């Protein structure tokens, strides 16, 4: 494993499997009455969140706590950042306080890269702008493998605002690495023209794609994209690209419906569709904790920690 997790591109196929397999063993911890192992005792994990986030921040916090690490949540409101402190100065402060890992969520693409210049510990990208969200991709890979038993050869569509989606970027690249067939679906204004260079296919017709799928992955579509003239209205978007009950019927039996959350019910996904049994959205959330435990453990050298106790 590399020291940092900035992009899914940094993780080799073997390492992806290692992360998933390690998560498998940590998942069991979440089912215990006492959900804790001592793997990262004495290590400090900082959650540095420049953007509001519920599930990713809580997921990282739980993951670190279940590994017995000390966790500091540094959110930008009410902190020195609100007083105008720069990313660099914040990073140097965290460094001075001895952070072993910094988990960063930021609205600017590439911020985790910049952070690595100032932080000696590991940097984990928890979503940077419209770039990547590699831990989400890994938990999605885990969930798909858990439900369908494999990744290779699966046909998966990622549907929605691919252009602005860090989830779509990481997941596409991750799935392609693992040998899945990915089709990006959405209005042409929201699909990068060069996307085929990622090894994916592109379609603007959801209904022609659905019957071939093993996984239908819906992306959140922000209402402000209408104001920016990417499509004429939210209503029209839903008509053309939303996952309705009628469209779910076009999916083969056993196909999964996934969504990274938070959902816009009634926009990209009909409200009752999200609650169907083939929708594994809650499993994604649960698996997120195990994946992040696995990542923190592997990146922070859980093995190294054990050596230290032995010695």
């Amino acid at each position, binding site marked *: 494993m590399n020291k940092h997790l900035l992009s899914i591109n940094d993780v080799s196929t073997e390492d992806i499997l290692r992360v998933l397999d390690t998560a498998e063993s940590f998942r069991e911890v979440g089912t215990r009455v006492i959900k804790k192992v001592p793997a990262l005792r004495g290590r400090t994990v900082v959650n540095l969140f420049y953007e509001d986030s519920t599930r990713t921040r809580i997921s990282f916090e739980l993951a670190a706590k279940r590994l017995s690490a000390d966790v500091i949540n540094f959110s930008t409101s009410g902190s020195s950042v609100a007083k105008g402190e720069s990313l660099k100065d914040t990073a140097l402060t965290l460094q001075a306080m001895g952070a072993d890992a910094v988990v960063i969520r930021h609205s600017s*693409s590439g911020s985790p890269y910049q952070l690595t210049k100032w932080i000696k510990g590991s940097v984990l990208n928890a979503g940077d702008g*419209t770039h990547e969200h590699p831990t989400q991709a890994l938990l999605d890979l885990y969930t798909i493998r858990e439900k369908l038993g494999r990744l290779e050869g699966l046909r998966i569509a990622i549907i929605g605002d691919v252009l602005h989606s860090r989830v779509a970027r990481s997941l596409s690249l991750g799935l392609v690495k693992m040998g899945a067939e990915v089709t990006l679906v959405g209005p042409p204004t929201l699909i990068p023209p060069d996307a085929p260079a990622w090894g994916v296919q592109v379609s603007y017709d959801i209904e022609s794609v659905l019957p071939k799928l093993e996984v239908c992955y819906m992306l959140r579509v922000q209402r402000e994209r209408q104001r920016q003239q990417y499509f004429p209205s939210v209503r029209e978007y839903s008509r053309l690209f939303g996952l309705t009950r009628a469209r779910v019927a076009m999916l083969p039996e056993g196909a999964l419906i996934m969504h990274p959350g938070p959902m816009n019910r009634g926009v990209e996904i009909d409200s009752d569709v999200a609650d169907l049994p083939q929708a594994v959205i809650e499993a994604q959330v649960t698996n997120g904790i195990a994946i992040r435990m696995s990542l923190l453990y592997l990146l922070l050298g859980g093995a190294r920690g054990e050596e230290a106790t032995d010695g």
Partner: protein
Amino acid sequence: MAERTLFRGARVVDPAAGLDDVMDVLVQEGGVAAVGSGLDGLGSTVLDCEGLVLAPGLVDMHAHLRQPGREDKETVETGCRAAAAGGFTAVAPMANTDPVADNAAVIHEIRDLAVQADLCNVFPVGAITKGLEGEFMADIGEMVEAGVRMFSDDGRCVPTARILRNALTYAKTFDDVVLAEHCEDASLAEGGQMHEGYHSYTLGLAGAPGEAEEIAVARDLAVARLTGGRLHLCHLSSARSVELVRRAKAEGLRVTAEVTPHHLVFSDEDLVAYDTNLKVNPPLRTAEDRASLRAALADGTIDAIATDHAPHAVEEKEAEFDRAPPGTIGLETALGAVLTELVGPGLMDVRRAVEAMAVAPARILGAADHGGPIEMGRPANLVVFDPAASWVVEPPFHSKSRNSAFLGRTLQGRVIHTMLRGELTVTDGKPTR
């Protein structure tokens, strides 16, 4: 004190005189006194130039010296020192100062600061429109009387064809006045952090497509045709812009163009680590665009190299990519970059490099004392450089800022002496004042 300087045994590269030969050059009382072999050095400071190239002092017609207004980033003095260290004897600072150089008072202020510093001849560029706002013509005539020959709203494109038409037409009142355009369609480029393409999509950065430049280039060339005015196109970045210029020149339009060293050296794939020093405007485009720029510079479609030296404070550049201002410093690295990346691999010879960095910009800028020829009676504005010397680009710089796209790179070709009107501003690679 010796008032005479003899450069002994230099390879004199003087495109304006058609000269490329090993010679001595004697300088006396600010001017060139003799060019020849075996000149008598008696009573002179003799500088041994064996293995070195002597050329007309370099001319940068596109720099940002930040004074008045952002003296924390650069001053006329520090900018001129950086320029001298880079082999320049003339620099044209752009008008986007604070206050804007849109009137004679600011022009005089900048020129006075330059005279005090006495490191370079400074040719301030005047704004085309008041406050660079793109609405009302600035006091062009008043600034021409103050000595301005180039006008530009650099950083912004004149927003409408009508305003550009009027300015280009009005400028014909004066001899040799040129309007320099930063070609960018604002609506397409808005929010763009880098060139739009595979790399911007993969890096998740908002892109500005090459078409944002090409649309403006096409419009501006059409307006140049309409008016017969003299137009200069700043820092071209795209292959199709180059093609438009090539056709316009074949048609006989009065148009010239420049390219920066960073657009000649880097491309959009160099942004994969989000290095904010490579965030520039226009953005670094594809390797194919870069190849076209290099070829166009070699064949003369692009007339000149200009640095677009853009100093920024450390804390502004050490920031999130989308928050960092665009621009790289360039005065101290321009010659080394061109020699290393273009002359070294054989894309052009030293003569063409000197032409593009001294002769052509002096001509476009109307800097008659610069760009050669190196002949008896001409002002001694000269540079001597070692084409073989390697150095690593790293702070400290003579510029007040250190946001160099070239940080950490090894460049081959280093300035040894720079001479302004017969006085050394740089000797043995170090500024004399």
